[in-house]
């Protein structure tokens, strides 16, 4: 197993290298740079100053020189400096990472807490009113774009009823380290987490429902019944475990996706996480931040694949990594 893991990690190195080249040059190929837009349009800034700035920042060097510099810094843990926020990208991401992590974990837990029981019930009681209600819900949430759904939630529970805050991750003036701070943080989390989870349950419920329906007809379930295993145990021991296998395969991706941030939810709920930062950085052409974030999600995706394989080989004895 460790051999397999180590080999996979080694294979990641060239993959990440290719990714870095792609990201860097695609970012470069986009029109404009950090000094375009707002700064360029400012009449107080002369073209000469701009040019000096570009020279100073190395933006006029050949692309491969810039790439080399960027990669060198990357190895030293220096992701460059945000042109917009005027702070190091590492710090910028770091401060957002915690928020994204909280939101991601909350969404993940909610998703599984909701979808696993619903998926199983729906599959077990196929074609009953219960199943039809659950399937109806999944169709509805599938058909509703996430931003419309989120806006609706925000409007109703945030603005109309005023039950929850409508933006931010914590109120201004709450002292970090106090219990009130934790509660406040959590309070801000509820609405975006629910909105995110309700939409992301769709796939899991449907998948699990189909798995349960398929597994229910398998021969080994018949064998279990022929041994006199009560129906509830037939489900919990035989059908459930086998139905959850494909879900386990996605868990690795889900775990790493927690850190990648959620573009829509964070933007709509004004939640200061990585997803929101990513969208802002693109609109502001903050390349150092964009490239860093894309690199990060690329790395996470690779780790996610590895994690998924490891989880699968752990839960399924038929898969053994050699």
């Amino acid at each position, binding site marked *: 197993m460790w051999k397999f893991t180590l080999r996979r990690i080694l294979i990641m190195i060239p993959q990440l290298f290719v990714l870095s080249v792609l990201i860097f040059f695609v970012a470069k190929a986009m029109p404009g740079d950090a000094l375009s837009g707002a700064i360029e349009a400012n009449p107080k800034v002369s073209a000469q100053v701009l040019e000096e700035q570009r020279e100073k920042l190395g933006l006029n060097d050949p692309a491969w020189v810039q790439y080399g510099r960027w990669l060198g810094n990357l190895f030293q843990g220096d992701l460059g400096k945000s042109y917009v926020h005027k702070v190091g990208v590492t710090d910028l991401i770091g401060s957002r990472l915690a928020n994204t992590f909280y939101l991601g974990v909350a969404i993940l837990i909610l998703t599984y807490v909701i979808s696993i029981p619903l998926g199983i019930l729906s599959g077990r009681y196929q074609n009953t009113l219960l199943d039809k209600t659950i399937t109806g819900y999944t169709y509805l949430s599938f058909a509703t774009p996430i931003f419309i759904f989120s806006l609706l939630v925000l409007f109703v529970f945030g603005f109309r009823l005023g039950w929850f805050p409508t933006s931010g991750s914590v109120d201004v003036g709450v002292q970090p380290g106090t219990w009130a701070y934790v509660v406040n943080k959590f309070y801000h989390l509820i609405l975006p987490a629910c909105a995110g989870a309700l939409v992301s349950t769709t796939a899991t419920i449907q998948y699990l429902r189909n798995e349960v329906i398929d597994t229910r007809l*398998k*021969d*080994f379930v*018949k*064998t*279990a*019944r*022929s*041994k*006199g*295993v*009560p*129906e509830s145990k037939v489900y919990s*021991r*035989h059908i459930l*475990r*086998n139905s959850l*296998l494909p879900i386990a395969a996605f868990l690795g991706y889900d775990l790493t996706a927690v850190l990648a941030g959620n573009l829509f939810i964070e933007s709509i709920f004004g939640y200061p996480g990585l997803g929101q930062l990513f969208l802002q950085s693109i609109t502001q052409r903050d390349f150092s931040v964009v490239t860093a974030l894309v690199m990060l999600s690329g790395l996470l995706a690779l780790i996610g694949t590895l994690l998924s394989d490891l989880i699968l080989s752990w*839960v*399924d*004895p*038929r898969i053994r990594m050699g």
Partner: protein
Amino acid sequence: MNTEPVLQIKDLTVSFRIKDEYYPAVDQLDLTINKNEVLAIVGESGCGKSALALSLTRLHDTKNTRIDGGLIFKGQDLNKLSPGQMNKIRGSEIGMIFQDPLTALNPLMTIGRQIEENLDYHTTLSKKEKTKRIYELLEHVNITNPERVYNQYPHELSGGMRQRVMIAIAIACRPSLIIADEPTTALDVTIQSQILDLLKQLQAETEAGIVLITHDLGVVAEMADRVVVMYAGEVVEVASVMDLFNNPMHPYTRSLLASMPGANAGQDQLHVIHGRVPSLQNIPRGSCRFSERIPWIPQTAHAQNPQLDEVSPGHWVRCSCYQHFHFEDEGKGLVMDGVAGAK
């Protein structure tokens, strides 16, 4: 032979729902399975033999299946038991063996655990005693290294080993009835003969009744004491194994025997049964169901609403058409009758 009945099937009808209507796949079947007897149920796909096998322990999906009639087992009617009472009997009094041992075992559970599950529900043994019993059972089905197999998963075993494990599960609580649904169809021929030998050996020890469901007449000849031939949901012939092979009567039985390669050695063409097996919705009910497969036999030869008649002690045949039956090409001297006699 001891003819103490283990299971009496009385007027059993198993119907499947197709678009809100129920169609009997097994039609008004009466049958008795005796202690220490191998009763083979033979027929081709769609004849109802597997539906019958599953209905004996009521393993059908209750939503789309209806089971009517009596299943008298040790003085009680299984068809009247609650699901909980039925679970007490499944696995302890009645053991089942299925066709494909790979799919019939849970891929995520160790072999030991899968046998143990049976003991969990029907015995009060301690964990240690159960483990000991499982080792014994594995040895009993001729698995030489039970300690190792105990911790293995199904995919780590060969097909023959897996079927041995299935048998160990079936006999774990010493059932008085074993239902084996095509137990060797998925196995190689050398493994098949070993598994059949094992079943015979186990029966000699336990005196259990065995219902052997198969499409393979060779397996029947090797294993059965009595044979039930099914066609389109009905029993068409019941006979001792000797009678069935030496003196087959029903046109279907005779046709089936004639279509086996090797039945008429040296012959170029095998016997082909005219037409095809009717689907569940299209079974001609109320008349001789085989009549459309032997169109050269005049309609007058068939009985209306044909019943099973006892033509000699223990030999039952449905419909009167057997008295007038001949093969279509018989005059040409191509088809000989009575397989065993032909050899």
